[in-house]
């Protein structure tokens, strides 16, 4: 468990350093304006579903997560950039089956962190093309009930995406931004601490990502110092392929095998953000 946390936090600290310290420094040296620092809060409806190799649904989870986050963003001569960190926490209702295929309902406790850096390159009036690199760390604790044993899972994976953005000016101090991202990533990892086996790390399959966003922004213009506000809604769908099976051992003896099946995440959210631009 400690190793799991160490793995997750070390990678996140590295990414935080890049996103929040190194990147702004590099940007500052590249003929860029002063960055803005923002804080956000919101909520998202979170859905998680797992499927076996034949496409049969094994597990379906749904719940509402609280979301908080930080953003550093700025404009350079030729591009816009931002670095984001978000934390989502909450519980989901678990409706699935046990390892013996018996129907089972419980809860899972979620804590998901996402770190991302992204850049937008204007291509024509109102339109920009973007690229994004993100790292996601998900702590999922499935609660046991009765003789059915729960256990924790720790997911970690990287994703990259290409995006398109359209911005429309709605008034002197109000503008609307619509964005779309399409991407994916290589297989990540999930660490399991199963009740009857030593902790094990499973490989995940590759992932695909679709994200859509709509944001209303007001306050000082992007080139002016001062406060601004943003309110947005978003939709994100991720699909991660099944990973390979791995032998489970306990005290050095094989006791079973496990794989992470294909899973699909869907998130609908709304956030509000305030930004101070220096």
């Amino acid at each position, binding site marked *: 468990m400690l190793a799991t946390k160490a793995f997750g936090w070390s990678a996140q600290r590295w990414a935080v350093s890049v996103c929040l310290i190194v990147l702004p420094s590099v940007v500052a040296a590249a003929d860029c304006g002063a960055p803005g620092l923002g804080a956000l809060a919101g909520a998202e409806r979170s859905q998680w579903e*797992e499927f*076996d*190799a034949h496409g049969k649904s*094994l*597990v379906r989870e749904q719940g509402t997560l609280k979301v908080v986050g930080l953003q550093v963003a700025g404009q350079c001569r030729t591009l816009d950039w931002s670095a984001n960190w978000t934390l989502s926490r909450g519980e989901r209702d*678990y409706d*699935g*089956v*046990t*390892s*013996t*295929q*018996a129907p*089972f309902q*419980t809860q899972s406790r979620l804590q998901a962190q996402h770190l991302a850096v992204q850049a937008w390159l204007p291509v024509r009036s109102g339109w920009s093309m973007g690229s994004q690199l993100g790292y996601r760390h998900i702590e*999922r604790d*499935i609660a*046991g009930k009765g*003789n*059915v*044993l*729960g*256990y924790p*899972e720790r997911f970690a994976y990287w994703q990259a995406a290409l995006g398109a953005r359209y911005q429309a000016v709605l008034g002197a101090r109000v503008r609307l931004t619509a964005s779309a991202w399409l991407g994916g990533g290589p297989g990540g990892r*999930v660490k*399991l601490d*199963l*009740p*009857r086996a030593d902790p094990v790390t*499973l490989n995940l399959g590759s992932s695909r990502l679709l994200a859509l966003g709509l944001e209303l922004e007001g306050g000082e213009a992007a080139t002016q110092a001062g406060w601004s506000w943003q309110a947005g809604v978003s939709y994100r769908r991720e699909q991660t392929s*099944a990973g*390979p*099976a*791995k*032998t*489970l051992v*306990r*005290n*050095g*003896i*094989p*006791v*079973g*095998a*496990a*794989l*992470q*099946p294909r899973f699909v995440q869907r998130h609908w959210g709304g956030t509000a953000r305030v930004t101070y631009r220096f």
Partner: protein
Amino acid sequence: MLKVRLALTLVAASTILVACGGGGGDDSPSPNTPLAATQAPITSANYVAVTQEALSSNAFLLDATSLVVGAQVSDSSTLIRFGQSQLSKTPGRIANASVQAVGATQTFTEQCAGGGTLTIVDNDRNGNQQADAGDSVSLTANNCSFDGEVLNGQLSVTLNSATGNFESGYPYTLSGVLSFQNLTAQSATTRVVANGSMTMTVDARSDFNQSVALAIDSFAVSRTYAGVTSSQTLTKYNTSLKVSPTGSGADWTSSVRGILTSSTIDSKSVSIDTPLSFVRSGNQAYPASGQAIILGAAGSKVQVTAISSTTVKIDLDADGNGTYETSVNKVWSEIL
């Protein structure tokens, strides 16, 4: 039929108890002992692993717990659950068989829920459409889906007895021989092959007053977990579980006596016996009392004592001088 399912579920829900137990209802004081040449030495380097392997040796026979599905995790209890389910169905199959010439058999095919088929041969020996001793059912699984796994191979069920209010309630008794012939369960992560036979006896009087016993002459299981293969053979192996009503629910009492040969101990053997049956309260995951003795080569011995429902003490007498020179307390979940 519902009550039969309950009884067999009790067996399925008692894995840990029996996994810790021994004796099979036999009160004789000494366990079976494997031949000296095939006995595995128990040392300070392997005694925890040997304990785990010995206590878990029938976990696939009687499994108490299951996991929620997050990752897809497979173990090897599916074939036994399938055997149990088919034993419970046998009296009904015999009763529903069409009238036939005495001694004749009839074959039909049954669809498995989730895919595949079972080819079933009923043999109502006297043609009376009642479950009598000697009546049998032979099943051939053809990619038959069961509990999320795909089964192939053969299982035969021969009734010893079936008496009582079997169809609609308690009490009843049910006894039969389950014979596995290359019966294989395949999942995305695991392949398990079983060969051998066991006699299962159920005595059910109410939901919380039941007993189940398994008597095994020889039963071999080969498991491949994500490409890693191991094997176990149980010989002269008897195990039992008794569920008794208490004020707050039920106590689960289990015992075991037999010989385990395992690839994890260089295909050598140890014997296991429970001089004190393990007892678990219905609201606990592990037994709070009971003791097992595991014997290896040259008198090497392990004593396993339940300290509480969370802790188990493991003592080692590696040189067989009667003194336990090494001891460790473990959390039950690290062993079972």
